């Protein structure tokens, strides 16, 4: 006879079933723990455990965001190499949220290329401007411009732009 399971156990199990850790999550958590541990010792390991818990309990990019927030705390005065290492270590967490398992290789490659390019742009902006708000503003405007350009391209490609719209664009 089947043993009845109480409601709280069932809920936890359901959550865990729904948020099964993918190999990429595991790789991401290990990388983050390794980099943080090497830089900050036990605090780094604690950050890794926190990221693991978030990755197991949630879906989407929350684990990536938490990893970034812990990096802010731990890598305040870190070198460029340590910062870059932390960002690359967090990438598998982002890729896990963006691509299903097993990931489509070309999609993963496009995401990786975009991620590296975005990091490069962010670093260039951070070092080029005197104030942080200038770099942040330019980054946001740049992302919005690319998104809007893609949106307009899609409208034209699908033939959804009427003649008056086209005239207004000129």
């Amino acid at each position, binding site marked *: 006879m089947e043993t009845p399971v109480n409601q709280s156990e069932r809920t936890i199990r359901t959550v865990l079933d729904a948020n099964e850790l993918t190999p990429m999550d595991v790789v991401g958590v290990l990388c983050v723990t390794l980099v943080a541990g090497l830089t900050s010792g036990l605090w780094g390991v604690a950050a890794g455990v926190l990221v693991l818990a978030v990755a197991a309990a949630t879906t989407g990019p929350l684990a*990536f965001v938490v990893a*970034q927030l812990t990096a802010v705390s731990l890598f305040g005065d870190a070198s460029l190499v340590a910062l870059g290492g932390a960002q690359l270590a967090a990438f598998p967490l982002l890729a896990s949220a963006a691509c299903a398992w097993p990931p489509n290789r070309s999609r993963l490659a496009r995401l990786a290329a975009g991620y590296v390019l*975005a990091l490069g742009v962010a*670093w260039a902006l951070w070092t080029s401007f005197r104030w*942080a708000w200038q770099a942040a503003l330019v980054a946001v405007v740049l992302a919005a411009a*690319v998104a809007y350009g893609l949106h307009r391209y899609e409208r034209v490609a699908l033939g959804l732009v009427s003649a008056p719209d086209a005239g207004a664009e000129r």
Partner: protein
Amino acid sequence: MLPTRRWAALAGVACFLAVYAVVLDEPTPLFAACGLAAWLVVAQVDAVGTMCSVDRDLSASVSVEPTSVYVDDRAAVTLTASLSEAVDAPVEVELVAPPSVNAPERARRTVAFDPGETAGSVTCSIEFPVAGRIAFDEVEVDIEDRAGFFTETLTLGADARCLVESPAPDGIHVGRGGELVGASFGDHSSDQTGPGLVPHETRQYLPGDTLSQIDWKTTARMDHPYIREFESESDYLLSLVVDCGSNMNRGPTGRTMLSYAREVALGLIDAADSHGDPVSAQFVGDAGTTWEFGPSSSSNAYQTIRRRLLSIEPTRRSRRPVGTSRPVAPEDARKRSRLLDGDDSAFASTLRPYLSDGESYVSRVSDRPIFDAVKSACSRSDRQDHLVLITDDSARVETYEAVVVASKRSSQTSVFLTPTTFFDDAAGGAGDTAGVVAFEEFRKRLERLPNVTAYEVAPKSAMNLAADRATTAE
């Protein structure tokens, strides 16, 4: 391309991280924000690719069955969609229903492609409450990208039409033996002279004629006094008896026998109205007269009868059939039966049952609604009248006996018969040859009665079909 709430949430997190970087003056949150932005941009590139490939590969068609219906009928509308190449994003193709139809909810007229599927179809039942040419010329395609960040709606053309006709008779044939009759009721000559407007003849003056009757021009021309006589005006009472029993409910929606009968009755009322003739009307259901009016020649009378005609519906109770037509008159039967008394031959024993029924044949139909209505219409008239009976040929004995009574008591009798054979589902609306022949025989039999004219009232298309068939047979 519309961003979803999921996209907005992620973009919000990216913006928060950018602001956080400014607040802390640290580059790490900005890197995180740029990482998330990279994900959103890559997802958008993927979405554009998916949408362009759906736009290129998707084809949809709509078909309607049947393509011609009557108002308030339903038709099956089928939407078929196919993708020449599977996409890994959910796609929904929705049949756009015109505003004038009653369509089911969206889910029941939508073909949903799950990722990897390439074909699908859906059939829904649509009601058409408005007449006209209804076009299903658009299908809407909703595409969502794989990650659920963007949606897009495309419109594809379709070419499906449905003709929705109003439920009214179209093309009425009123004729005698297949020959169209233009007008059955109009000016009626009285063959009597008197005061009036229509010149009748001129004749020589006779003593007693008044001075005002002299036609001075003719008198001058002929050198003798001449009188011009005018045709005196007369009015006919139009007694209308319309059968609206359950037998008149045969035929498709809006084109039942009663619909055709109603058109004829309306035409007669219009003619009476234009001549100012008094009218009386009786509507007869299965159980008896359901409504009667008149005689009256007031303008309200015509309007009242018209309104009533437009609103009548056939009654629901089935009518009891009358037995055989033309039975032997009871007196003859009794006389012949007496001759057979004491005769034990096979001939006499075979014949005896046929002569045993001594009941009056008139009493067999005397309690029937049509017969009763015609009899009361005839007894109501105390002047020249024109009795018009509009019915079908299903109760031939009753109709025949009613017309016999009318022919004896009315100045003029017109019978408009809708042939049952043209409205039977089994005959497919074209009538079977035997049915048409039987109807025509019955019509001719009615016409042999004095002062009786019998017409057939039928759909023009059915009459043409029957005429073509007869020509081919010849």
